[in-house]
């Protein structure tokens, strides 16, 4: 249910009139779009949504009056963000603590707009909101420019499968609607996003507080040629889950009805008909569909997204976590997984840690085999090719070894059987999308864990000392043997010890700086 993978950008040379030509979806049903607003603290996420709701009159007059009264009572300007930041603490501190979603409709689409918190400590809440989004709007205070959470949120989007977004540069009023500054910040963010392989469908300048280019065209931003934010909402390309023909039916539970075992669950892909030959993994059993249910009704055919029930013609023992697939499907269960992982638990995740790996309805113990390409949580650049650990707010490519085989897909083939969460001590602590499984993953895992052995200064010093003690004793003993004078032997030994320790240390540090002959990681 995510945005399209191909780049599909809006051309800024087109006039807004051309935009109206976008085809209305077939039938009376509007296209459902989940959209999340992300970005740094205080860059105006909740304000933008509030302003949009107000200008399009999707907030009741009563609610506007109540908010006005509340703001007056608190002696402050009208606060658009209050429509979504409903908690007392949120209003008092002017922050969003937890996500809130609100329905919003245009002529063409029915949106669920998700307001995400921008504080780093609420990252798990931001993910809870963004994970259900089809696409995202990244908002940046043009005055402050690209900040830490701007980058972190963008990086998270990629790990949640969102790769085509809209960029909004807010608070243009604070910089006097200056085009030059806008272009400068726009260039910064576009550069960063292209590194992450995020496609920017469009970017535009707005002032959420003043309502410039939110729902109405702006005189002050006349140099910008393109649609308003509201118009853009109808244009963002969103490709709902392609109705893949390949069957995926993770078993959720087994129920008994009139002596029959009904395997229930929701099809995450494909379709199933009465009489179909199916295989159940990882138990690797083949059987036939004898009876089918959609909810509680007997039917002949169920499709992706439906809460289904199936009865097999053979007495098969399957359970929650097993997946029903087509008989000749080439995909096999595996114990090796390589995935792009994000982590938000307070305690760091380390190589060889044990976790609970939850994918669709399956749950299995997993061990972390390797942590590669960790993105540093402060600089948001690749900190290490190979790491021993990752901390909250970081992302990396991880290799897992599962205790028992699980049926897993690559995320690019099947979203719902290609993504997972990681649980530690009963808490959901992170998640990831699967890049490769089975043999391919095993190859990736076989690569050396720690390839460059750079000595710490402390370690080289200790090594030098221990080596010199052995060397000095040997020299001393030999000197004593040759001269026959124990006193001379001791003196030579001590001199040897003190002098060479310094030479060895300096020598080691110098070689550290030379790249000659060093093998690549």
């Amino acid at each position: 249910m995510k945005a399209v993978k191909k780049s599909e950008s809006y051309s800024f040379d087109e006039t807004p009139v051309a935009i109206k030509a976008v085809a209305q979806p077939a039938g009376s049903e509007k296209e459902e779009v989940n959209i999340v607003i992300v970005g740094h603290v205080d860059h105006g996420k909740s304000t933008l949504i509030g302003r949009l709701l107000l200008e399009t009159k999707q907030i009741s007059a009563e609610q506007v009056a109540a908010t006005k009264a509340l703001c007056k009572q608190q002696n402050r300007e009208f606060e658009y963000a209050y429509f979504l930041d409903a908690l007392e603490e949120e209003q008092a501190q002017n922050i969003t603590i937890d996500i809130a979603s609100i329905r919003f409709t245009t002529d063409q689409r029915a949106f669920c707009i998700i307001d995400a918190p921008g504080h780093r400590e609420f990252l798990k809440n931001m993910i809870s909101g963004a994970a259900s989004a089809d696409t995202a709007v990244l908002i940046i205070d043009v005055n402050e420019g690209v900040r830490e959470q701007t980058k972190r949120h963008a990086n998270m989007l990629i790990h949640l499968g969102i790769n085509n977004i809209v960029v909004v540069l807010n608070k243009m009023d604070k910089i006097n609607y200056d085009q030059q500054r806008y272009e400068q910040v726009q260039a910064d963010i576009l550069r960063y996003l292209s590194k992450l392989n995020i496609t920017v469908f469009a970017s535009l300048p707005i002032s959420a507080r003043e309502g410039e280019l939110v729902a109405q065209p702006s005189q002050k931003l006349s140099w910008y040629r393109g649609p308003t934010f509201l118009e853009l909402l109808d244009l963002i390309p969103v490709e709902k889950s392609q109705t893949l023909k390949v069957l995926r039916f993770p078993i959720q539970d087994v129920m008994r009805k009139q002596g029959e075992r009904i395997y229930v669950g929701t099809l995450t892909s494909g379709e199933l008909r009465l009489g179909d030959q199916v295989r159940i993994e990882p138990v690797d059993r083949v059987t036939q569909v004898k009876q089918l249910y959609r909810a509680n009704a007997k039917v002949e055919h169920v499709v992706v997204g439906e809460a289904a029930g199936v009865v097999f013609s053979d007495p098969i023992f399957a359970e929650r976590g097993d997946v029903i697939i087509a008989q000749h499907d080439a995909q096999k269960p595996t114990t090796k997984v390589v995935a792009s992982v994000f982590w938000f638990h307070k305690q760091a995740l380390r190589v060889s840690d044990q976790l609970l790996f939850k994918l669709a309805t399956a749950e299995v113990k997993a061990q972390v085999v390797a942590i590669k390409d960790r993105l540093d949580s402060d600089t948001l650049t690749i900190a290490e090719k190979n790491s021993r650990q990752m901390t909250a707010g970081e992302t990396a490519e991880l290799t897992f070894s599962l205790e028992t085989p699980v049926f897993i897909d690559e995320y690019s083939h099947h979203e719902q059987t290609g993504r997972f969460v990681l649980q530690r001590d009963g808490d959901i602590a992170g998640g990831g999308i699967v890049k490769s499984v089975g043999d391919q993953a095993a190859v990736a895992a076989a690569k050396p864990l720690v390839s460059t052995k750079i000595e710490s200064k402390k370690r080289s010093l200790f090594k030098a000392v221990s080596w010199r003690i052995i060397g000095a004793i040997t020299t001393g003993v030999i000197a004593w043997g040759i001269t026959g004078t124990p006193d001379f032997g001791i003196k030579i030994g001590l001199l040897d010890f003190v002098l060479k320790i310094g030479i060895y240390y300096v020598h080691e540090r110098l070689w550290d700086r030379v790249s000659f002959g060093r093998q690549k990681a």
Partner: protein
Amino acid sequence: MNRLDELENHSIWVLREARRHFGRLAMLWSIGKDSNTLLWLTRKAFFDDMPFPYVHIDTSYKPPEMIAFRDKLAREYNIDLVTGMNKKALAAGMNHTQGRMNCCKALKTDALQQIIAENNYQAVIAGIRHDEEGSRRKERIFSPRGNRFSWDYKDQPPEFWGQFAIPEDETTHVRIHPLLKWTEMDVWQYIERENIPVCELYFARNGRRYRSLGCAPCNGSIASEATTVTEIIAELARTTTPERAGRAQDQEVAYAMQKLRQDGYM
């Protein structure tokens, strides 16, 4: 698949998750349209069975039409009905004149707490929705509650990709909200499509009807001519008034619902 189908499938999936993870499970049944929709969805999810008890918190101030409707449905669907009542507070004369917040807390929250403790429920299913009011908008589908019933809205567990927090700690219970993503309009359209029975108080009599059902002393009716579900849907499409505008406890103090709900109110 249209929106109602998507919502139905999602709710059935949540109900099946609830049943799968909690042996001692109950559903809160307020007799309103939302919990009747849940009742309907339960029958769909469990092949016409009702695999858990339905708990009704009776404050003794509910309109008689609600109680009559409850008993009729319980007989018809063979529902295992459990009623909870804070008899001690009622004997001491608790009513809304002692402050609506106090009354809601004693007769609803405390009564619920008592019945959860008595039956040792690990989880209760409730029909709240995001679009009802601000603090409910912040809710998760699986919402763990502290041992003193509290809702820690400032530190909720992450919830995404259909994976829920199942606490290992025995002292807490979990609230499960299968209708969270539905809107008032969705519920009525689904009631129309499925022909779900609802209490007669929702339909206009002498030019007035109830939009939200609750205790008689604290619930105001609205001016309306809607006598059928279809007419209610048409009325909702026009209105700008919030759903719970008639519920006096919501307007009692600033952040009233947040304050009630952080102590365990539904």
